[in-house]
């Protein structure tokens, strides 16, 4: 926790990558950034540079050609980062499922935090997905900041960083609220 932790999650910068999508979802992402839906009112910038991004918006089933680049881009985003899979293809392969040159979904290669359904996913849904990603982003940061014992303890680095923990924290919060 630091002085500015209250405001630190109001500037999610987006990296958008097309992993062999049909461009439908890409157009919808650009629509979400455009004046009508105005994602920028939440502080979102489409930075296009992995080193300066926080939220990784991926579209498309992963084609063989795009696998390495997908992983490389993911690795270049500094922690804490969140991955949003936009569209049906990224979740299951969508209409491309089972094709000879396609991996069915990006979660075979990188951990995904939010799945945005739809073919193509609408701008409203994408905005929803990004906002959900911002909530997960905050949880991930808190998980990173939580002290843990390196050796001999129950918590290992992997566990402290894992997605399962953040999910459990979230479930507890959801149960507590009502």
């Amino acid at each position, binding site marked *: 926790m*630091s002085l*500015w*932790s209250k*405001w*630190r*999650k*109001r*500037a*999610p*910068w987006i990296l958008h990558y097309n992993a062999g999508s049909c461009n439908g979802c890409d157009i919808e992402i650009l629509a979400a950034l455009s*004046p*009508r839906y*105005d994602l*920028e*009112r*939440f*502080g979102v910038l489409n*930075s*296009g*540079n992995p*080193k*300066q991004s*926080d939220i990784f918006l991926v579209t498309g089933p992963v084609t063989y050609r795009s696998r390495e680049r997908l992983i490389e881009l993911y690795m270049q985003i*500094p*922690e*804490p980062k969140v991955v949003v899979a936009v569209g049906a293809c990224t979740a299951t392969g969508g209409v491309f499922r089972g094709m000879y040159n396609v991996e069915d979904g990006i979660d075979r290669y990188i951990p995904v935090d939010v799945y945005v359904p739809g073919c193509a996913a609408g701008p409203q849904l994408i905005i929803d997905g990004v906002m959900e990603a911002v909530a997960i982003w905050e949880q991930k*940061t808190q998980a990173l900041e939580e002290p843990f014992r390196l050796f001999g303890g129950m918590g290992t680095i992997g566990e402290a960083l894992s997605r399962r923990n953040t999910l459990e924290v979230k479930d507890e919060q959801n149960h507590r609220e009502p």
Partner: protein
Amino acid sequence: MSILLALLAPVLGALVYGFERIVRARMQRRKGPPLLQPFYDMAKLLDKRLVMVHALHVSLGVVHFILLWVAVAMLFLGGHLLLILFVHLFALLALVMAGYSVRSPYSHVGANRELLALLAYEPVLILVATGFYLTTGSFYVEEILTQSPKLGPLWMCFLALLLVIPIKLKKSPFDALEAHQEIVGGVEIEYSGAFYEVLYMAKMVEYLFVYGLVWLFAGDSWLLGLVLVSLVFLLVNAVDNATARVRIDHLLRIVALGGLGLATLNLIGVSL
């Protein structure tokens, strides 16, 4: 008062930048981010894990920011105009060296373009400063600000400065040095986290530098200064929203011929 302004230059610049993002959004009929968005960006960037390419790259970025801050502070404290321009030039050279010090080709292209743009607009800025000397008899900002507005005799220099402003603020049509869709930010591509925040602040300080130069044309008239700065602010943003990017060689031609031509004609006219 001016010492306080000089010390708070990055904060002031951030407010200007936040306001500008709102204005640009309203021009496109959207809501836009909140006014304090640059500070939220800062909080976010300071929270990211630090990744650097090498120490020299980062320190040249810091040098760039500090020298720009010094230039703006000298402008606010009424320093020598030529000296201010040279400190500003030095700051940009630090950025260019930072661009060349990493292996990313985009960074190199960005640094090349930064140098080409320098070639185009630096003579214009120096001619504008000379214009102030010819009309007021002094290079000192302090002295210039005590005299009557020089917009009348220097109106062509003012137009030349208008050509330079979009380059300095990385605005369309002259944003080929940054070109986010094309070379992903140019020289700033390899900066991330807290180190990018330094460059981000440098960009905001640049706003104060440019609008400070605009303010000089108003001389001792505060009212004219405010009117000039807000008109230029609106004009630059309207043009940014309405135009596409020109290529770097076109930028060079337009600014070097147009800007230099206008400023030279003006100087000839003034000295006759």
